[in-house]
């Protein structure tokens, strides 16, 4: 595992990856196990949710309200609305910023850069390991949900979970890429953390609340959360144009940051 930069990152993160997988699988299990009782007594909660403004529902449940007595409605509200997107964003942004800026702050980057490895290769492998980490976590809990969903009367097509997984990956990737790009281009961990989470929270609130403000209600498409559909009966296919635009945007900002990293001074602490 210690023969390449990206394999070392995965090796370093082995405990962290196990932790994230166990936590998300554990939460998924807990929420899935609650569904049989919700199915029987969720009507009152449905009524309460439906009485709220559409924007408030979007803000608190991460998308339009679906009946929580349905399997998809329940998982969407409890898992795919807030918990999974934000868990993956936290994992991705933290590791994205740490990839270069973290090593720079720890002082380990200096020695690494005196090896016969280019900065482009170093940063590219770091980004690759970040993407790989996200995929490992998403595939793990998605597979778990698909395998065990029938055990808790959660009857729906498994493809919906696959598509929701791709949606989650897109959302986490774009914000992780912003964190990675800021950390790599500035080398400043504190500024990168502050800016990335400000962008994330602002983007989230913008998507949820902009609809309440007349005149700019159609501007929610500038938020990255606008493109996250989560888990829905209607989302049974992936919007490839949207998906590739997100990938392209992520690659573009990551490439730009590597271009800057290739030319800038390395900070010493």
């Amino acid at each position, binding site marked *: 595992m*210690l*023969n*390449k*930069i990206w394999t*070392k990152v995965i090796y*370093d993160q082995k405990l962290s990856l196990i932790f994230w997988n166990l936590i998300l699988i554990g939460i998924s299990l807990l929420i899935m196990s609650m569904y049989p009782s919700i199915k029987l007594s969720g009507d009152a909660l449905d009524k309460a949710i439906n009485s709220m403004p559409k924007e408030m529902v979007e803000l608190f449940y991460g998308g339009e309200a679906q009946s929580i007595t349905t399997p998809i409605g329940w998982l969407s509200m409890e898992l795919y609305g807030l918990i999974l997107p934000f868990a993956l964003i936290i994992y991705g942004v933290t590791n994205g910023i740490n990839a270069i800026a973290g090593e720079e702050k*720890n*002082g*380990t980057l*200096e*020695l690494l*850069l*005196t*090896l*016969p*490895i*280019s*900065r*482009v290769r170093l940063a590219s492998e770091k980004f690759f390991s970040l993407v790989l980490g996200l995929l490992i976590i998403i595939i793990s809990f998605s597979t778990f949900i698909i395998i065990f969903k029938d055990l808790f009367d959660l009857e729906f097509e498994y493809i919906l979970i696959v598509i929701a997984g791709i949606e989650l990956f897109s959302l986490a990737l774009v914000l992780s890429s912003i964190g990675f790009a800021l950390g790599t281009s500035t080398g400043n961990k504190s500024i990168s953390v502050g800016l990335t989470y400000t962008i994330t929270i602002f983007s989230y609130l913008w998507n949820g609340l902009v609809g309440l403000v007349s005149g700019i209600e159609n501007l929610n498409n500038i938020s990255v959360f606008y493109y996250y559909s989560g888990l829905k009966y209607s989302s049974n296919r992936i919007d490839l144009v949207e998906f590739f635009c997100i990938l392209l945007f992520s690659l573009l900002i990551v490439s730009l940051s590597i271009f800057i990293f*290739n*030319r*800038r*001074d*390395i900070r*010493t602490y």
Partner: protein
Amino acid sequence: MQDIIKMHNVTKYYGKFKALSSLTLDVKENQIYAFIGPNGAGKSTAIRLMLGILNFNEGYIEVLGKSPTQNNIDIFQKIGYLPGELRSYQKLTGNEVLKFFSNLRDIKEDNYINNLIERLDYDPNKYIKELSKGNKQKLGLILAFMHRPKLLVLDEPSSGLDPLMQQITIELIREARQEGTTIFLSSHIFSEIDKVAQKVGFIKEGELIVEDSLEVLKSNATKSITIYFNEIVPLDLFNNMENVNYVENNKNVVKLNFNGPVDAIVKMISKYEISDLKTQDPSLEELFMNYY
């Protein structure tokens, strides 16, 4: 002899602060060059510039015949670097760090690494976070020497080491030179530089103020001589000598500081009966103190 490091008129700014000012130095092949200066003088900045960790604002740098930029990444296969303070992966063991770096340097056999581990009495099974400063320094030395580089850049190689390990470090440096390695080192331990360096550069406030071979620097420096006469000599005995710049006359014991040849002093004292004579070359530390 080929220049292994060439820095010509290199200037580096940190914002508006000028960290290095028109620094020019050349290190020849198989030479041990010692870079001396107080903290903040620009030693580490110069080292980071020659390793491409920092970019310079003006001037020209060539290391192993190439500019130390990302376009010439292959030169780093031939460079071993010990930073002033080694900071490595806290959660890895020494063995894991060595494995990682030897993989990235494509080192096939680990006999020499094991030899270094043994000679430096380093325990590679401990986690980096458990290591003392001295043991971290040992790991840094192994990482710098492990691939038998053509150029060694050592920032404070003996820092944190006990006298025995300092001696082993000096031996390693000497052996590397015997194998044809060029060594650029910065150090505060003057005895260490005295033992190994051929050429010395003094840096002050980002400028190289003196650069020459240790031999020449010492021969040009003020030396001292103490003469124990068997009789009381005149107080003004050495007053008219041009190269004598200080006289301390305590009855029959005279202490002189002088520059240049000792011939005139010897001729003068030969007229008197002498019981003892002690001469002292300046130490590197004294040379250093003269400049700062």
